[in-house]
């Protein structure tokens, strides 16, 4: 079942009256339960694309379909309501709400999605336990390390049980150990059937994905499925894969 489809998606910024195309006619589809990594050099339009998919940025032309409904024509407020129910976001700089505790940060999207305070608390307790952050529930974001903050951000993105998880360079600001932790979590979530689209520079992130879409100058230059390369663990293929 298709979760997300785009048709000829275009985004052109105006810089002092000069049009600067960031995304130039992207057609792509994400199936339910798929883990898609979008890669490409800086300025290739990856972040712009993922922002448009979540309604944070508006498209210049083209179409976006989510769960079989056309969404690119929605107003800003309608997009916000859609995000509450169907989309979770993870950013490079974590973007936890600074004045709220970890628990409040995670409960907020659940409350917004219409869960009762008790349900959202239970959901938060479950997610934080899964991510090993139970004892940090009442800490302020500033008291956490970068890795912890990104784990909280992931918990927050999952709080409303989204159809689609969008992540923009989720490991871009983390050291290798924290990167590994976050990747493990993404893998686990994916294993539970979560649809994920992640923008990354990092080959390690891409290696977790089912599909790697490569952008250059705002256009898709490669769309490769990685499933065929999966081998049972412990085989020689692992070594090859790690080096690749």
């Amino acid at each position: 079942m298709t979760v997300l489809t785009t048709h000829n998606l275009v985004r052109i910024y105006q810089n002092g009256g000069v049009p600067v195309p960031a995304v130039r006619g992207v057609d792509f589809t994400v199936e339910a339960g798929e883990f898609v990594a979008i890669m490409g050099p800086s300025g290739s339009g990856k972040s712009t694309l993922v922002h448009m998919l979540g309604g944070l940025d508006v498209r210049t032309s083209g179409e976006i379909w989510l769960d079989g409904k056309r969404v690119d024509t929605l107003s800003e407020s309608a997009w916000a309501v859609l995000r509450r129910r169907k989309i979770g976001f993870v950013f490079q700089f974590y973007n936890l709400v600074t004045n709220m505790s970890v628990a409040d940060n995670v409960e907020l999207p659940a409350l917004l999605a219409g869960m009762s305070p008790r349900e959202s608390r239970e959901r938060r307790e479950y997610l934080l336990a899964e991510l090993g952050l139970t004892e940090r529930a009442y800490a302020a974001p500033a008291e956490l390390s970068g890795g912890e903050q990104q784990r909280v951000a992931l918990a927050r993105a999952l709080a409303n049980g989204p159809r689609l998880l969008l992540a923009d360079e989720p490991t871009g600001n983390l050291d290798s150990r924290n990167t590994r932790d976050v990747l493990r979590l993404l893998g686990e979530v994916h294993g539970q059937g979560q649809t994920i689209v992640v923008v990354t520079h990092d080959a390690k992130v891409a290696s977790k994905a089912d599909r790697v879409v490569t952008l250059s100058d705002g256009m898709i230059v490669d769309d490769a499925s990685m499933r065929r390369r999966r081998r049972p663990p412990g085989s020689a293929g692992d070594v090859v894969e790690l080096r690749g």
Partner: protein
Amino acid sequence: MIAEWRWIRADLRARRTQVALTVLAVAGIVAALVTAATLLEEGTNPWRGLFTRGHGAHVWIHTKDTPDTAALRSLGADLAGPYGSAPATLTGNGRKVPVALQEAPATPPEIATPLLTEGRWLDRSDPDGVVVERSFAQALGLRPGSPFTVTGLSGATHALFVKGVAESGDQGFYPEWTPGLAWTLRETLTRVEPAPGRREHVTGLRLADPGDTTLVVQRAVTVLAGQVQRVSTWREARASMELDNRLLGLLLALFGGAGLVGAALALANATGGRVLGQLRDLATLKSLGFTGPQISRMLLAEHGLLGLLGIAGGLTAGHLITIAALRVPPSPAQLGAIALGTILTVLVAVWLPAWRGGRTTPIPATPALPPHGRLSRLARLALLVRLPPALVLGTRDAFTRRVPAALTSVGLAIPMMMITIGLGCWATLDDFTKNPERVGQAAALVVRPGEMTAGEAERRAAADPDVAAVYPGVELDALVPWQTRTVRTRALGTSATPYPFHVVEGRMFRERYEAVAGQGLLDLLSVRVGDRVRLTVGGTPLIVHIVGRVLEPEQDGEVLSLGLDTLAAKDAVPPHFYSLVLRDGADPGEVRARLLARDLEVALAVNPADRLAVIRVIIVALVVVLALIGLANLLTASALGLRDHVRDLAVLQAMGLTPRQVMATLVTGTGLLAVLGVLAGAAAGALLSTALIDLEGHGSGMGAGIGRAPAPAALAAAVLIAVGAALLVALIPARRAARARVPVTAG
């Protein structure tokens, strides 16, 4: 809703000090407004305060015999009295003044309590002592210990003395309300007037609802069936105490406006600063699914709530302050008006930043960064004249974010402008006091002949060495065609030797049938200087040529002044009074005492500045509040400036700027905006204050021409203090920032 409240609660918790300061600032302004309004009301209409403090009686019934108290109580009123009362004549110094002696118990009564201001209350061990009503005592120059010799209707004279002076809201002020009032013990009253037939009884009725007064009076008259001789009500007492002075009302409106602008600035600044500081958080909220209107609503609720809390606190504090300081609660109408005005102001002040917050772009990855690059023209100029690099960088920083830069300057300019206008009001009041002749009060004293002939009174007054000139005068009511009311006509001096009115437009009258008028009269008759008006004075028709406009502090300026020789002889002779112009430097009080000793009836002219004295307190309070608002604005600006430039600072340090230079850069960045704001505000205030006060003078009928610009020394001091304080406020965070080690790569 739950999500919104969760965020509001978290945000309030995260910045408790700032929240407390905002609430306090708004509360302070509202409390100042309530106190100012109550103080001004006390100044213009002391009745309410006196009546409230003394638990006054709303209705006073004068009866021949002791009334049926049970019947009066059945009307649903608490009673004061009945007290015996007798007319008598106060003699002494060759004067005979009618006085009403009224019985009072030895312990001041619960209802209609006279409020002792000087001396002591009546005492059985001292039956010759009386307590005199304050305005009466003042008019006659009586103080505790003064002799109070009264002659009863029988002709017998009793040597009593003044034991105390007390205020009362139960009857109007002397001489508007005659006869004067003195309280005595019952035995003293019986001694002065032994014949019960010549005494009457007065009974006060305190009603639960003052609105019932008319009904209660009618029923009392019916119940007491023919016994009632006279009834007076609180409305008459209030009317006789009211100073019909529109200038005060207008000034109150001006200060009220200033206070509201202050409250709006304090809140808009606090909210705006906060919203600007959390744009990234707001963007994150949007990415989580908050809609723009939802965020606006949330911000409006949060900051509006703080404003409303401040208003509630301010109203309560104002209430408590006025009760503690003046012993009168503020009037409900004023409280309501202030509450409504401030609530509207708060909503408007908070709405704009809240709306702006709601429009934040939902991409949190792009935190608000100042535009980089281009040096402003001012900074290029600074480079050209080879200023030190710290100053150039500071100058550049000052204008990188143009809108906040403008807001900072305006945020300081407005309080500074208000402060300057306050100083202008102060200078105007000073001018009233120092040069009363310039507000139409050349004469410090007014002598009435009383018992003696007019000629004798004039001779005695002129004999005093400090009296420079004596102008005979008459005041009459004139009928004006097309007007249903009369206007005051004052003939003072003659056309050849006119009284020194302060003419601000046109010229003084020089011939018969020429006159000058106050602004109020010109407005009332819709005439201008140069027009002729027809009026009827004492039955004689008169056409006068208005040749000039004078500053007229009395009767809301609705006074026509002309020479005595313009009036018919029957109206002009003998003069009703003499206005005395004193020599420079003479003390009116001393001269009055000397003239009183010569058995003359002398009254001191009331300077408008004395009535407006309370405004000085309000000016000081407002200046303090405005200064605090200015500082708060500056703190926000300085914090924002720091946030914008924190990365630049690291680069500057890396490039080799010393901490001192970094500090200078930061101080220049904020200080330059502060100096610009202060100077612009002071200039605008100085330009506006004279015009504004003149406008108030015009509106009040006194006339334009009273306004004075703030004293240059005071203005210079205010500007220097403001700039100094601004630089100091900018220095503290700058110092801290310059010493902090900021990593260049800080995200």
